[in-house]
């Protein structure tokens, strides 16, 4: 049996050992600035950093010390706010959840796809949010309010737990080939947020949301490529949620 002290000493030693030498990262970024011209271009930067440095901080090093015009969104820097979804080495990820050592020696960063690029890594989120708003993303219950809380069993609560994790970062929707090709498709994130209410025992508007999602812009556009599930930084089983909504529309209600 290992004692806590022994675990700590091991862990302590490991941290000291893992105290990393710095590494050099080559960062290739797709740039766009409408004030400079209509075409995008590629820029390369070299950054020396700690191997455990988050990619969003690597971008800061570039912005602060090499090129102040580099534009990207970020805020919390630990995967909660959803600001910094980017196409990183071909995969949609949050720049604050990717470490330098995991992409070294070269990382290629582009804006997420399928939304208009406004500058560098910043895209227009409005079309994405339109899809979100279209599914009535709020609890609808007209049956009168109880004096205290509405009751909900732990099992009923667990039914929609996964889809409550969504942070609206757009990584799923902008990884979806159907969304790239079809501007009308509401996209995975909107369906995730519809799922969150359709399967909430307190909500009364599942029929209405399923009617919206059975429309030509809705769930049946999904071709089950699983890109969205791979892209979700919150680990939501997005494709499964979409399948559950499809099944509800086909077998339960319509």
């Amino acid at each position: 049996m290992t004692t806590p002290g022994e675990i700590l000493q091991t862990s302590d030693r490991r941290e000291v050992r893992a105290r990393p030498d710095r590494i050099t990262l080559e960062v290739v970024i797709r740039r766009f600035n409408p004030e400079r011209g209509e075409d995008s271009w590629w820029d390369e930067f070299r950054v020396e950093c700690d191997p455990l440095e988050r990619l969003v901080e690597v971008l800061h090093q570039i912005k602060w010390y090499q090129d102040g015009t580099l534009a990207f969104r970020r805020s919390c820097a630990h995967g909660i706010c959803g600001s910094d979804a980017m196409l990183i080495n071909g995969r949609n990820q949050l720049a604050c959840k990717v470490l330098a050592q995991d992409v070294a020696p070269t990382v290629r960063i582009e804006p997420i796809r399928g939304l208009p690029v406004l500058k560098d890594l910043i895209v227009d989120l409005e079309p994405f949010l339109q899809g979100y708003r279209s599914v009535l993303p709020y609890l609808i219950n007209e049956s009168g309010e109880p004096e205290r809380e509405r009751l909900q069993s732990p099992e009923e609560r667990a039914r929609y737990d996964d889809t409550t994790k969504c942070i609206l970062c757009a990584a799923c929707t902008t990884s979806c080939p159907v969304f790239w090709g079809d501007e009308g498709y509401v996209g995975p994130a909107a369906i995730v947020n519809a799922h969150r209410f359709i399967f909430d025992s307190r909500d009364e508007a599942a029929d209405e949301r399923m009617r919206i999602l059975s429309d030509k812009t809705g769930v049946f556009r999904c071709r089950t490529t699983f890109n969205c599930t791979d892209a979700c930084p919150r680990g939501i089983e997005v494709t499964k949620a979409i399948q559950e909504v499809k099944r509800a529309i086909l077998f339960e209600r319509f």
Partner: protein
Amino acid sequence: MVTTHTYDALVVGGGGAGMRAAIELSDRVRTAVISKLYPTRSHTGAAQGGVCAALGNTEEDHPEWHAFDTVKGGDYLVDQPAAILMCEEAVEAIYQLERWGLPFNRTPDGRIDQRRFGGHTANHGERPVRRACYAADRTGHMILQTLYQQCVKRDVRFFNEFYVLDLLRADDGRTAGVVAYELATGELHVFRAKAVVFATGGYGRIFRVTSNAHALTGDGPAVVWRRGIPLEDMEMFQFHPTGLARLGVLLSEAARGEGGIVLNRDGERFMERYAPTIKDLAPRDLVSRAIYQEIREGRGAGPNGDWVFLDISHLDPAVIEEKLPDITEFARIYLKVEPTVEPVPIQPTAHYAMGGIPTDVDGRVVVGADERVVPGLYAAGECACVSVHGANRLGTNSLLDLVVFGRRAGLSAAQDALEGSLAPLPEDPAGPTLAMLDAILTRTSGDNAADIRRELQDAMFDLAFVVRSETSLTKMREILGGLRERYARVAIGDRGSIYNTDLMEAVELGFLLDCAEALVVSALARTESRGAHYREDHPLRDDANWLKHTLATRREDGSVELDYKPVKMGPYVPMERKY
């Protein structure tokens, strides 16, 4: 080009407090929310552990017990009537969130589940009590999402990525509106309104190690400070004991609420020595100071000996998975540590500003020792100081503060907007903002903003953090003087109009310097130790001289003037704070 907009009411900031206010306002008057981020990016979403209310769902509890804990937790610098009101309204505030759909964890009989949290006790300190309502370890995320959903339902008008840089006041002192910079275009906008609610959050980015988002640069407090409004109790800044080592990313107190413990490098559960009754569930200021003491006495770990450990490896993996999934993932991703089998390296992290823009319990901004109301101006959430947190906020009371006082500020601002009239705009309302931005944009060489910011954050971490003294704070004040001089020459690399985040960060740095200065000057004057403000040269609380709130005001000549106002007392007589 300057565009002018007119609304009945404005909310500055789209986080929890701002959206809670906007919900009340938009039901009653024409309202706009102006936010430098998309609302769901706000830092309310990073809050983890819970929101306290004496629902009594799992064991006996009373709002009065909650109020006592809040006052004692705040080391008696709390305005007691405000704390009592908050704890009474907490119960309905939680039910309201539930009715709006917030997915709280549930008890087996379907009620909102509750868990233990630091400093929350039964019957005035007898034992820890289950008071924190929670949604796994993403309670703040669920509050932010739920409030945003309600705003979508009400079709609230948002101006996203509009950065408010100035407060407009008429000659008679009435609030006339704000000036905002549109990030997407670089254009300035004048917003006129009868009532303005500031809800811009905190300013943890003055410190190197912080749980706060990059966006938390004290914009609201600094903007009103530059317009003559005092800032209250700025020396009271909370350092959360369990930040992820090196990064400061928060590991929720819920980890200890669920049974996690803090260990030094020898594996000793040292909180048994500092708080024998509630041990690891002592309030944050006590645990952070205990960690510092352990580090000083050579029992810290890590390459610089300045870490200790949070251990949850003895908890049931199912509990960790169900109730602490996010913080477990943080340890895995950022430190490559597996919390289910080994302890996680931690260090205290700058977390929460107890101080801020002084308000009454209706969110009205009040100035001076006699608390004169500034007509039409409101504040709520972390940027405000009611004061319900006093010298040290209890865990979960921040989320409670923003729903209770966000609502109250929204209601009273709506009343003003319904009854009042638009105040006249000052001449050339956007002029001063334009001049400030142009000065930075046209400077072709000068000091790098990132260097100044890094030096500010390093020095504040070394000299004005968990342990302070006259020597350290005096040195910090001198350093700030030097940084200010350099900031006057700050130059940036981007001179464009579209998404010039370089310019935005340079402006934010100016706000950070203001907040740091208000903090340091206030802390230097307070020659006692109380709550989060610990002076090693004055280690005891001094009620005879310091049971009062600090008010720091920026004078015309740039210096900082200090004034004080009494704490509003109530049923709780200050006593020694033991746990």
